[in-house]
């Protein structure tokens, strides 16, 4: 499987990505409808969402990526609407069938590369909200094939600087 380095952002960012190996996607510029919970991607057209909008171009990239950066505003301790909508639409990367992971039941993954994930969570985030988000990402790790992950909390004002710093680290590791 060809692996990619992927950045998914819920907003446009003014950052300079020099490496061609890194793909940046601004989700807010795309047309992505809500998942309708039809189970079509599991039981009618396995591996494919029945809603043929921009999401169908994104979840294969999520699956292929071995290095992943999610950039999302935080709401009620979780991803805000734009990122959460995409994550819900990414379930074609899983099968309906269940397996045991560390003794817990989770969906079987299709061809999904193990990931080194970074989540940059931005906004005015309280300590309680950070704690909920940490627990959420720990759960995501089981269901989204994160081999390792880190969470970086930042403000809206410092977001571009924070992202640029992470991208520099990625580029340094690629060169």
């Amino acid at each position: 499987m060809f692996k990619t380095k992927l950045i998914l952002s819920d907003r446009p960012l003014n950052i300079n990505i020099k490496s061609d190996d890194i793909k940046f996607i601004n989700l807010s510029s795309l047309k992505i409808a809500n998942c309708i919970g039809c189970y079509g991607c599991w039981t009618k057209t396995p591996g494919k969402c029945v809603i043929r909008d921009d999401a169908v171009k994104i979840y294969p990239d999520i699956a292929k990526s071995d290095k992943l950066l999610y950039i999302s505003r935080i709401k009620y301790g979780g991803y805000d609407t734009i990122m959460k909508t995409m994550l819900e639409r990414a379930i074609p990367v899983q099968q309906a069938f269940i397996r045991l992971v560390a003794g817990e039941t989770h969906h079987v993954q299709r061809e999904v590369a193990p990931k080194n994930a970074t989540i940059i969570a931005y906004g005015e985030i309280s300590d309680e909200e950070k704690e909920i988000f940490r627990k959420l990402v720990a759960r995501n790790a089981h269901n989204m094939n994160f081999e390792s992950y880190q969470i970086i909390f930042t403000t809206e004002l410092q977001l571009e600087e924070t992202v640029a710093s992470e991208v520099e680290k990625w580029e340094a590791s690629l060169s």
Partner: protein
Amino acid sequence: MGSIIILNGSPRAPKSNSKRYAGIFSDNCKCNTEYFNISKTNHYELCGKLGNFTDMLFVFPLYADGIPVTLLNFLKTLEQNPPENKPVVSILINCGFLEYKQNDVAVSMMKLFCKQNGYRFGSVLKIGSGEAILDTPFKLLVVRKIKKFADSISLSRYCTLQTTMPISPKMFVKASTTYWTNYGKRNGITKEQMETMQIEK
């Protein structure tokens, strides 16, 4: 005794398991209940109704480890359009996994919403194996727990409850494989086709 507005936050509300859970709740609740699906277009209408109720029950599935976008978007509208008299918020959440604890993060999110917006938090019922349990003999366990849950809200004796299939994880994997294989079969899709590792190919 108060009255309860039941809001279904499932993305497939009209055909959802959440609707079935809400129906069992209404059938076993001593208070008056009114049921509504949350849709993209009825947020303001629902916000306008809330002040007439003592309690508000959100019924929804776990989605990508958290609350579904359908519900998230409604909460954001509600934040901007709060009722004058805020009902007590209770939650009935179900996930397809065996472990009802996988719902905990979503419950924390709802508690945070309440805290940030001045709603008293009421009862919680966390259901594991929620996709299939209503079509098994274990339905009895769920009905019994929903009745207890409904009583806790009716009597304002708020509490946290949970239920799931009383089987081992290994047995659950086996049972869920049969469940999903039959689901695919109804669509003319074999188990092998469902097991494809390919994505968008």
